[in-house]
């Protein structure tokens, strides 16, 4: 086994040596080829570079020229543009001014319309209010008149009733008083006569009246 291992290792080492040697040889050859190619390329590159520089300088010249042209053209365009812008701005300002004026006019018109409508509304409102007030006053007058008429009728009726009651009361009182007077009139007369005759009749007159009474009793045969 160990032998196999030694053989294998030696084989491996030998293979490795051979490989490294081959690599080294190839590398050495490759470097020589590369230097030739590089030189060639270097020359070609330098030429290309030179060409490129020339071309680039030409391009730069053209570019500068073109740039100057562009700048000049740009200045003109800019001026034109400025003029156009100024013109447009002026136009815009003008339009804006007109628009503003128009808007102002519209606003004034609107305000005038509004004022007019307001006045109309006020007038209408005033008229309506006046009509309502008149209506209310008319209604109030009518109601007041009705109320006054009703009250007058009621008052008159009440007064008539009161008067009738008062008249009835007076009539009743008068009747009662008349009845009382009638009932008491004789008593009043008797009392009056008693008072008057008691003072006015002399003793002789009183005695004479008694004599008449006694003679009447005699005639009546009251005393037998």
């Amino acid at each position, binding site marked *: 086994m160990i032998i196999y291992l030694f053989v294998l290792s030696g084989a491996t080492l030998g293979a490795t040596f051979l490989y490294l040697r081959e690599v080294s040889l190839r590398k050495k050859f490759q470097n020589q080829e590369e230097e030739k190619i590089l030189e060639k390329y270097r020359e070609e590159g330098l030429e290309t570079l030179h060409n490129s520089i020339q071309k680039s300088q030409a391009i730069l010249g053209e570019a500068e020229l073109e740039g100057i042209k562009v700048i000049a053209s740009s200045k003109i365009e800019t001026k034109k543009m400025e003029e156009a812008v100024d013109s447009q701005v002026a136009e815009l300002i003008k339009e804006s001014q007109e628009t503003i004026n128009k808007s102002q006019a519209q606003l004034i018109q609107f305000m005038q319309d509004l004022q007019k409508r307001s006045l109309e509304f006020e007038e209408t409102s005033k008229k309506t209010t006046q009509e309502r007030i008149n209506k209310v006053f008319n209604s109030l007058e009518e109601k007041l008149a009705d109320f006054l008429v009703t009250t007058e009728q009621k008052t008159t009726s009440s007064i008539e009733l009161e008067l009738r009651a008062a008249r009835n009361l007076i009539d009743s009182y008068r009747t009662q008083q008349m009845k009382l007077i*009638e009932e008491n009139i004789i008593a009043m007369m008797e009392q009056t006569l*008693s008072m008057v005759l008691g003072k006015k009749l002399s003793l002789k007159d*009183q005695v004479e009246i*008694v004599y008449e*009474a*006694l003679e009447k*009793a*005699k005639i009546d045969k*009251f005393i037998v």
Partner: protein
Amino acid sequence: MENNIFEQILKQSYSLSILKHRIRILKSYLSGYFFNGPKEQFKTEDQNFLSSLPKDFYSSFNKNNFNEIFSQFDQNISKLPALTIYLAFEPSDEAIERIGTKVRQLFSPNLILDVKYDPRLIAGCALVWGGVYKDYSLKLKIEESKDKILESFKKFLR
């Protein structure tokens, strides 16, 4: 005798109250005379009455018959026919005497009056005899003419 004495007093006395008063005066006077009792001070009219009696009137009295006679007087008074008379005025003694005289002329000499006062009669008189009342006053005449009077008054009231 007692009756004779009584008649003498009765002759000049027309009402019961006067009669009784005079008999009381006489009794008082004779009582003082016979029994030395307290002597009463008489009014002028009473003195006049006593002096108006005749002298033989007093000779009829003595201590012994004094009480008997006055007892008899009381009996006689109760038996007297009394005519109650209501007058509309308060009569004086003179008025009573005049009315009494008239009554005795008209009806009976022994009639005695029982005088009462009733101002409601207005004038005239009302009589009571034997328990019967009879009105002869002006008040009755007015009552009888009440309807006529009322009619007359109503003319002024309406």
